[in-house]
């Protein structure tokens, strides 16, 4: 189970309190009735489904109830950071995964082994 830092509550809470909310930093179209089928498909159905670093929305459903954004590695499930909704995409090159790794997976421990 993941431990997730809510940037509004300013504490780590168990994954059970949260729901993932899909990709972050996607502007919802304002002209949906006029969009072409291609553009609507790209917005509504197609996904990058990134293997590696991804930016996504989470909601602290059973806590403060607010949406925030997270940068997470989808191979190790490690959170690099979480940040408030509306803030720009953080520069992840300066971030290191939290010292207390939220989850330890087989693949992650293998790649850490030097």
């Amino acid at each position, binding site marked *: *189970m*993941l431990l997730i830092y809510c940037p509004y509550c300013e504490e780590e809470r168990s*994954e*059970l309190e949260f*729901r*993932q909310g899909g990709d972050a930093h996607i502007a919802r179209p304002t002209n949906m009735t006029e969009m072409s*089928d*291609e553009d609507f*498909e*790209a917005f*509504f*159905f*197609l*996904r*990058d*489904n990134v*293997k590696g670093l*991804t930016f*996504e929305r989470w909601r602290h459903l059973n806590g403060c109830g607010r949406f925030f954004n997270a940068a*997470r590695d*989808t*191979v*190790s*499930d490690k959170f690099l950071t979480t940040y408030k909704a509306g803030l720009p995409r953080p520069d992840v090159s300066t971030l290191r995964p939290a010292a207390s790794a939220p989850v330890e*997976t*087989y*693949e*992650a421990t293998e790649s850490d082994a030097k």
Partner: protein
Amino acid sequence: MRKYSVFAVAREAMRGHRGWEAQWTSPEPRKEYDVIIIGAGGHGLGTAYYLAKEHGITNIAVLEKGWLGGGNTGRNTTIIRSNYLYDESAGIYDHALKLWDGLSQDLNYNVMYSARGVMMLSHNIHDQQVFKRHIHANRLNGIDNEWLTPEQAQEFCPPLDISRSARYPINGAALQRRGGTARHDAVAWGYARAAADRGVHIIQNCEVTGIRRNPDGSVAGVDTNRGQINAKKVGVVAAGHTSVLMEMAGVRMPLVSYPLQALVSEPVKPIFPCVVMSNTVHAYISQSDKGELVIGAGTDQYSSYSQTGGLQIITHTLDAICELFPIFRRMKMMRSWGGIVDVTPDRSPILAKTPVQGLYVNCGWGTGGFKATPGSANVFAHTIANDAPHKINAPFTLERFRSGRLIDEAAAAAVAH
């Protein structure tokens, strides 16, 4: 290939089992093939087999980044059924079910298909209405599915608790008698052996790192960690990693990858005669011929490629199992594992041509692809050989997410996704 038979067993027994040959070879890759299949799971190996058997194309390579059958083919709960609601789904899943019946003979390999019956439990009025709708729709499509009272359900599956005081009382069940299980590894091995016998190259530990294109945009081949391999036709059958591979050809997919977990108990004597699924409390369970209870859990709520999953997902399922089958409360669980499943928005698969000439994709089987293995492989081989879909997989296009002609099993599914 030396045929497997009772005489072969007797002959080898006489001479100390020294005459068995390798089931498939591991050749060096050629510079060029007619068709490359990416992914040596059941669907990919089956595609190669049917291309060779039914379409006369034998110059095929099946590339696998890990080991044969090491992905979702080796990680699922081996349940086979075809009681889907919509005509399109009924068509493809029942095509598969018909091929399961006779697959062992076709491959000369015992895939241990056992039509022991798949029973879906109904816990409330809504379940009952949904299942009865499924039963009628299935019967119109010529697929067996019948309604059982709680007493009949318990007669079919004696460990089931049907008392009114149960935590999750049962008001009936839907039973597909032709449903059942098969030996998952044997499916991959059987297809591999039969395909290799017809000249197909199975190349393991060969990871595709790029998809090469001609100046006109059509497929030219693939780059791998064992060098460049050319082919005019490439089929991607990579389950959870489909998005990663298709991105190499510049095609964005309507897929999200999630971890899906399963677990097995300690082996015990035969106690559980069928497959039981419960959508409402999310549990499915059967007993393998080795004696282990095979239990399927749900997907995690977040996308991931970690091939693991949260412990709370497993315990949630075990809670339900212990309530439905109180006799299992003291069973010990032996192993649990995860696989990465690729889920489409409508929970129906994609078996289709792509915008890239010569590139084909078979994906989106989500949490239930094993049951479809022979049918999927059979019609996908047809699609690659003829550069046009078989009528069974014609509705399962990539374009349906543009046209809106979805096959929305997500809303109709008999299990939660």
